[in-house]
């Protein structure tokens, strides 16, 4: 059955998305710990990867949101899922190239929505669910995280004011390891679930699983491994923007930011909001800059990020819709294969572009000079 070929392709693409989700989001948990020197860069990404693996198994609640809350499932076909994933991956890779911490969840949701609209029209979208479950939390969650982080930062400095600067820095670096681990765990419980939901959706669309089925164990396992491998690879470009670009961070601020992120993410999932870990982490980091006297928030960097956030849903939707239209134009299995070949080519070009301005564990903490890739000391240039 040719459908099985498509299904296998869709599952591989979904795992590919999960992988980009992992490396795009390493920074959410680990950027501040790396920036303050609480953890060596490579230890940080390894730890975060392992905890994402654990987190993916810890909670299985969020997986259903993407499958049933946003689009009418009867209109979803394997081709739609493939096209949606193409939209999500493309946006993730482009923002990663520019070092912008945009939301992987929104990229995925945008892609799926765009592809569904192209396939079945606007009535297939649950607009109320989209607004109340995705767009409003996207606006509110960074603000709440910023408030909590600002308050936390103020408290930490106030309480620890009798300590010597060196002892304080030492103590909160230890605390940061714990709070960063909580964010990694929270990330696994949230973001790995979204890919599980999409693969389950594909299996249901194919008839392999009955409607309303839960994610099978192999899906959970594959998603957990894909996201933790991606996390381990480390999205150094995004880590750099978050850790060095927004605010210069000291260890008490790092711990305050991470604690705020972990609390807000875990609480929100508890209330059924599958929100963007990226938005929360960024809000926390800005908050920690606001909570410390004399700390400077680089609003130009923050503004660039906010712009990217606004464009995430529509951009991924447009790519998803384009991919769906193309796949339908070509038709059948060949259409999906054409989509995925183009996606692979785009990914290749972006990877090649990224090589010319490399950011890795060696230069991730270089002084912020206004660009993602630190200036390379060129031997001959003036």
């Amino acid at each position, binding site marked *: 059955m040719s459908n099985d070929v498509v299904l296998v392709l869709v599952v591989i693409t979904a795992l590919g998305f999960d992988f980009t989700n992992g490396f795009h989001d390493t920074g959410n948990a680990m950027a501040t710990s790396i920036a303050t020197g609480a953890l060596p860069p490579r230890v940080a990404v390894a730890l975060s990867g392992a905890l994402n693996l654990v987190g993916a198994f*810890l*909670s*299985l*609640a969020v997986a*259903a949101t993407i*499958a*049933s809350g946003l689009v009418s*499932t*009867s209109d979803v076909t394997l081709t739609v899922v493939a096209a949606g994933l193409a939209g999500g991956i493309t946006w993730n890779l482009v923002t990663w190239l520019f070092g912008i911490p945009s939301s992987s969840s929104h990229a995925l949701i945008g892609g799926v929505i765009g592809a569904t609209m192209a396939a079945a029209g606007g009535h297939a979208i649950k607009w*109320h669910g989209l*607004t*109340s479950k995705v767009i*409003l939390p996207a606006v*509110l969650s960074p603000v*709440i*995280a910023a408030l*909590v*982080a600002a*308050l*936390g930062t103020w*408290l*930490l400095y106030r*309480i*620890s004011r*009798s*300590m*010597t*600067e*060196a*002892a*304080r*820095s*030492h*103590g*909160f670096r230890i*605390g940061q390891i*714990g709070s960063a681990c*909580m964010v990694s*765990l*929270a990330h696994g*419980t949230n973001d790995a679930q979204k890919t599980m939901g999409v693969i389950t959706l594909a299996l*249901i669309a194919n008839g392999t699983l009955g*409607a*309303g*089925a*839960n994610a099978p164990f192999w899906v959970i396992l594959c998603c957990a491994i894909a996201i933790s491998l991606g996390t381990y690879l480390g999205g150094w470009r995004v880590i750099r923007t978050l850790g060095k670009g927004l605010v210069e961070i000291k260890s*008490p601020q790092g*711990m*305050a930011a991470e*604690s*705020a*992120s*972990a*609390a*807000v993410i*875990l*609480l929100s*999932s*508890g*209330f059924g909001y599958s929100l963007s870990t990226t938005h929360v982490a960024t809000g926390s980091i800005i908050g920690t800059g606001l909570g410390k006297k004399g700390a400077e928030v680089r609003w130009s960097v923050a503004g660039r990020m906010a712009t990217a956030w606004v464009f995430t849903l529509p951009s991924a939707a447009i790519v998803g819709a384009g991919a769906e239209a193309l796949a339908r134009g070509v038709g059948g299995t060949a259409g999906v294969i054409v989509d995925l070949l183009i996606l692979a080519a785009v990914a290749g070009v972006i990877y090649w572009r990224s090589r010319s301005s490399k950011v890795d564990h060696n230069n991730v903490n270089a002084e912020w000079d206004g660009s993602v890739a630190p200036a390379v000391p060129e031997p001959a240039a003036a």
Partner: protein
Amino acid sequence: MSWINYNALWKIILYGVVLGAGLPALFAVGLVSLSRGNKVQTAGGETESDSLIGGNPLGMLLAAICFLIVLVAIGWGIYEVYKIGHPAATPAPAPSPSSH
């Protein structure tokens, strides 16, 4: 259907402040207690020590209590997440709502 669930919103803010800012603050109290007895910032040019252990017994006890509360709260939080993530801990898995 309302656009914003205010009930969830204020709870997220309240618990967020208690857990997200309160727990690190408690950790900070523990750090300060632990380092009690360390000599205060010296006026001279000598490099300050980054040692955290001050050696005051009362301070160490208070620190231990603070750190313990933080750890218990984190453990409880992880357990809650697990409980939410695995509803119906009974042998028969609850039938999930079927989608059409």
